[in-house]
């Protein structure tokens, strides 16, 4: 039963993913890619469970620890890189709708 519900969740999340990304302006493609890449670092959850498993052997601990490290690099690096990119856009004057602060020189 649990498995079936997981499949249910899978299906709904898939549709949701499709619906969420529509009409994204092109200059946001790269940040969006990078931001969703950071989300895919969610595998860190699996890595932690593998590394700390109560019934694991040294093999699983080694593999798990490596996975934790790599996933953490992905997560931390991904979010920071995305934030830096988006910061670039924001810094000069505000975007479209927001009031423009910098004089157009």
């Amino acid at each position, binding site marked *: 039963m649990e498995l079936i519900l997981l499949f249910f969740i899978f299906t709904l999340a898939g549709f949701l993913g499709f619906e969420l990304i529509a009409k994204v302006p092109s200059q946001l493609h790269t940040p969006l*890619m990078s931001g969703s890449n950071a989300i895919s670092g969610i595998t860190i959850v699996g890595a932690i469970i593998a590394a700390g498993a109560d019934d694991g052997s040294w093999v699983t601990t080694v593999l798990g620890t490596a996975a934790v490290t790599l996933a953490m690099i992905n997560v931390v690096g991904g979010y920071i890189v995305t934030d830096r990119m988006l910061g670039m856009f924001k810094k000069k004057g505000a975007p479209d709708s927001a009031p423009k602060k910098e004089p157009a020189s």
Partner: protein
Amino acid sequence: MNRAVLINSAYIIASILFVIGLKMLGRQPTARRGNLISAGGMLIAVVATLVDRHVVSYTWITAGLVAGTVIGMTCARAVKMTAMPEMVALLNGFGGLASLLVGAAEFFRIRSGEVLPEDQAFTATVIALTILIGGITFTGSVYAFCKLAEWLPGKPVLFRGQHLVNGFLVAGTVAAALGFVVTHDARVALTAFGVFTGLGLVLGWTLVMPIGGGDMPVVISMLNSLSGVAACAAGFVIRNNVLVVAGCLVGASGIILTVIMCKAMNRSLANVLFSGFGAVAPARAGDTPAGSVEGELKPLSAEDAFAVLEAARQVVIIPGYGMAVAQAQHVVQELAEILGQNGAEVRFAIHPVAGRMPGHMNVLLAEANVPYEQLVEMDGINPMMSIMDVAIVVGANDVVNPAASRDKLSPIYGMPIINAHEARTVICLKRGKGAGFSGLENQLFLLPNTRMLYGDAKSSLQAVIAELKSLSL
């Protein structure tokens, strides 16, 4: 039970934050906040997992978390803005490898343990999928990284029978994975496991090989989607809902994003992945095929350019990949400022696929402190193009190639372009006769109103600026 409820509630909250974050990332004004929200979701998920009852020893976890944080932070802070695409590729590769390792760890845990999982075949299948997809993501991303960082040549690597080799690799991988799923013999399972892990890693490499460096952003987006799928598969391996949701979200949205990116270049995903686009470019660019362009290239010196610019009232600057190569964004900004002081109105026309990644030009110009208001999108500038006195094309080629809208036989036919040719005078900066990414000749350079300013974009512009400055002093 109580702790499980707590953890899973946290997972639900994390999933909600991911959904909201992803939604907000798609709109300029909310994008940055969206990223923070999604990071908050990740934090919640990690903390919730740490209190999981199955997690007993924290030494190694802490070590991994700290190491990962330090490395991730250092790299992400240190990387230059212009090297972002390869950085994303590398990070994505790490994520894929992590999923692979999670799958492998689960395999060894089950192997060493007494209790077999309920649905053995199902578990074996998802383990195989996790490892395969994770492996392809890893090596594919690393290869993309190497191409973008120019550790490897950017040109597509094509050889005879490439499709055949790939076909065999795929067949071998599938066979090994199937064997792994059906066997009940622990030794056979181990061998199969080793085989398809290895083949999966090789596959990631060979599949990306025939794709040119310029298409790497699309490939990275594709691999990003795959890393989501890998995480999702890992979620099925360990029956974890937040992994399934977040992984699937990334998988689905990544595919859509990839398709959107392909559309902006007016190509299909299959064409990007399998055509070896750009491989024949140099050959084609040199000779003069049927339907070739006529006219002559009219070079221009920096002094002449100065004269033209000095008199211009309406100037549009069209940056392209060449500006990134020459790292000319700062000089371009300086030029714009001087022209502005001289009384001209200066705009930057940004084509959606100028450069080698979406938003490439935006990022570079932002780095050089070009005010946001001066950036105009393609659809905004084209109607105004005919009132422009001068269009300065800084290392752009394909995105101003009129063949895209005129020549039905051109491979980029149908791609919307910036109509630089409608400006009164066009000044093109490039080093020589090099073709653009698509390898096509560009009639724009031969038009009567076009002048070529040869040389590296940065030094050419510095020369022009020197002239302008000498005047204003």
